[in-house]
């Protein structure tokens, strides 16, 4: 029992990332009808927003401390972050430590801007082109974005620690009445899951309870009619693209402490997220989220040693296997809407 709970928990954080990316993909697909292969790159950009903020905050000036000597007897060079000089060590220490959560605020405007520029500058011209062209051009864009990041940040992963308040692990077992130490779960993953839940709920609430969201949903159902009613649906869809970019970016920001960001992390997630979208059903937001969590949990179940003893290597292929079975038996996906991309 405790092993099962542990696997569910383990699956949730990866599942959260899948769900967030897949949600954005589905939003873009449902509104603009564009298959965005650069969405993984947006996730990666988000993670690098966290890295950038961390670097900015720790920008330092060098002072020479005459009182201390290094081992050669020269005066020691001390690096002091600028903000420490401005606000004193107490505040600066806290701010630097909390750079990842702060990066959320930093990332939102950046990702919205990136999304707007991307949609107006490139995607706009691909509405009418076949899906293959959309895949290809966004695939090219993903390569470009990823190479730009590689140029500035290098090819190695950059460790970006979470605040030390969340660095430990949480003994879930004791809480649920199992033996202490059976279910150990890092705090930050719990935070990530909570964060993902909040973002997903926020997006759904936004679509459900605001006038803007209502218009967007109407546009997803029948774009032409909404346009005929005198509503500028294109503008709203552009904003939805920016929102989707923002969701992917935030998923990336918070993922940075779990896996040190490197330039190709987006591509690794993208392939799986696409599978998630297809399993969930093209154009179904709920389906994308459900499939994201489902596949995340399935993946972690498949990597249990009891399962691996029976079916070796199943953890590597389970997601693809599920995708193939779903696509062949239920072509519309788990919750796909009728008439969306059915060919």
């Amino acid at each position, binding site marked *: 029992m405790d092993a099962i709970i542990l696997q569910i928990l383990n699956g949730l954080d990866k599942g959260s990332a899948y769900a967030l990316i897949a949600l954005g993909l589905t939003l873009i697909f449902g509104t603009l009808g564009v298959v965005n292969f650069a969405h993984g790159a947006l996730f990666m950009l988000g993670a690098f927003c966290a890295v950038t903020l961390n670097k900015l905050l720790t920008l330092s000036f060098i002072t020479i401390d005459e009182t201390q000597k290094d081992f050669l007897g020269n005066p020691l060079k001390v690096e002091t972050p600028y903000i420490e000089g401005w606000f004193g060590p107490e505040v600066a220490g806290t701010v630097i430590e909390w750079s990842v959560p702060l990066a959320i605020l930093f990332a939102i405007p950046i990702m919205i801007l990136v999304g707007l520029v991307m949609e107006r500058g490139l995607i706009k011209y691909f509405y009418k082109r076949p*899906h293959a062209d959309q895949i*290809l051009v966004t695939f090219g*864009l993903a390569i470009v974005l990823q190479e730009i990041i590689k140029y500035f940040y290098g090819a190695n992963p950059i460790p970006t620690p979470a605040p030390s308040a969340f660095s430990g692990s949480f003994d879930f077992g004791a809480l649920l009445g199992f033996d202490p130490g059976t279910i150990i779960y890092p705090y930050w993953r719990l935070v990530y899951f909570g964060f993902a839940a909040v973002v997903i709920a926020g997006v759904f609430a936004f679509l459900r309870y605001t006038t803007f969201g209502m218009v967007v949903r109407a546009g997803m159902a029948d774009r032409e009619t909404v346009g005929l009613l005198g509503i500028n649906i294109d503008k709203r869809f552009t904003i939805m693209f920016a929102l989707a970019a923002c969701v992917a970016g935030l998923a990336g920001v918070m993922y940075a402490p779990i896996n040190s960001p490197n330039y190709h992390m987006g591509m690794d997630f993208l392939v799986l997220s696409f599978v998630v979208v*297809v399993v969930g059903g093209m154009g179904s937001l709920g389906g994308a989220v459900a499939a994201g969590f489902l596949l995340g949990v399935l993946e972690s179940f498949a990597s249990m040693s009891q399962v691996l003893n029976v079916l070796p290597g199943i953890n590597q292929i389970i997601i693809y296997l599920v*995708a193939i079975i779903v696509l062949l038996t239920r072509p519309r996906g788990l919750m796909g809407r009728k008439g969306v991309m059915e060919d």
Partner: protein
Amino acid sequence: MLKLDKKDMRLFIIVALMTILAPFILNPFPEGSGLAQFNAGYPDLMQRFVIFGIFAIGFNILFGLTGYLSFGHAAFLGVGSYAAIWMMKLLTMNVIPAIIASVAIAGVFALVVGFISLRRSGIYFSILTLAFAQMSFAMAYSVLTPITGGETGLQPKVNDPRILDAALAPGATPSAGLFGLEMRDSYELALGNWLFTFNFGYYFAAALMLVAFYTSMRIFRSPFGMMLRGVKSNQQRLNYTGLNSKPYTLAAFVISGMYAGLAGGLLVAMDTQVGPERMFWTASGEVVLMTILGGAGTLIGPVLGAGFIKYMENIISKINESILHQWFYWLPDGLEDLVVGMIYPFIGKGWHLTLGIMFMLVVIFLPGGLVEGGQRIGRWVRGKGRKADATGDKKSTASTPAE
């Protein structure tokens, strides 16, 4: 001759001449000169040109004709490679059984994958092929380690059975060959400052590439090819006429899988080792890049694209900052640094950036790839030459769509 019309025959002869004379064409700069680093006429790279040319030609038969975008073609390349290496381990270091096995097994594998994947089209087809390829990669990496050698991959060992060859003499390193001629045999010809290398492996692969190219030409011009084009332009209408298009698309899929298998087998024949990373999805993405960049649906485009990308990967990526400084030494100091700083991100290790930008530009502005670009330039030049003959010109362009 060869059942090709005049225009195709001309193209085929040009391609054949280019491949035969490649050691000269690709080595235009004398040894030791500053431009010698742009020489691509060394055996390893030339072999890659033709092998990936085969791969891209095969991919083009599927994507260029039917419009089905497969994101998992590297799986067939990998399967072909594994088949070839096992033939070398079990039977003989002669490449003939290896090549036959790689084509056959890749074909069977493509039949299975294609049969399932082709039940869906559009983006679903792409995802399905991607899923199959990633599964093959993951399994080659982990579960199938007894067959694939896992992470380390496979290479022929001295004490493999090799039934036909009998085991090698102790200490001899196994190397692939064809009835006594080894793939790495080379003849070097020094002419003045130039050094030309004629490699047996290259000519073997080039001969197969010409066969592959000829076959693809015949497919393009055949009724079967017309049917595949019909699938691309309007599958629904094709179905309404009472035709079942599935056998045609499946045949195209299997043929292109066999091409990929052939390329995989040749890779092993040239360099007798194989690892699972050959099946990773970035490898599948690469052949997509090659085909689109060169010109999907055109005959020569994929070969050009393959050559272009492999050239960048091997030559442009070697240019480093100090070489750039040598080139621009004649500029004033500050300006030199500025120019070098501006160019540097796009070359050397950043060649992928250039590739990505070029790929995007091609997809946006030149859906016909480099071939269409060449045609447009050609037409523009000709149009300038004789504007008076506008009507005749229009007619000729209409009858030659990007091909």
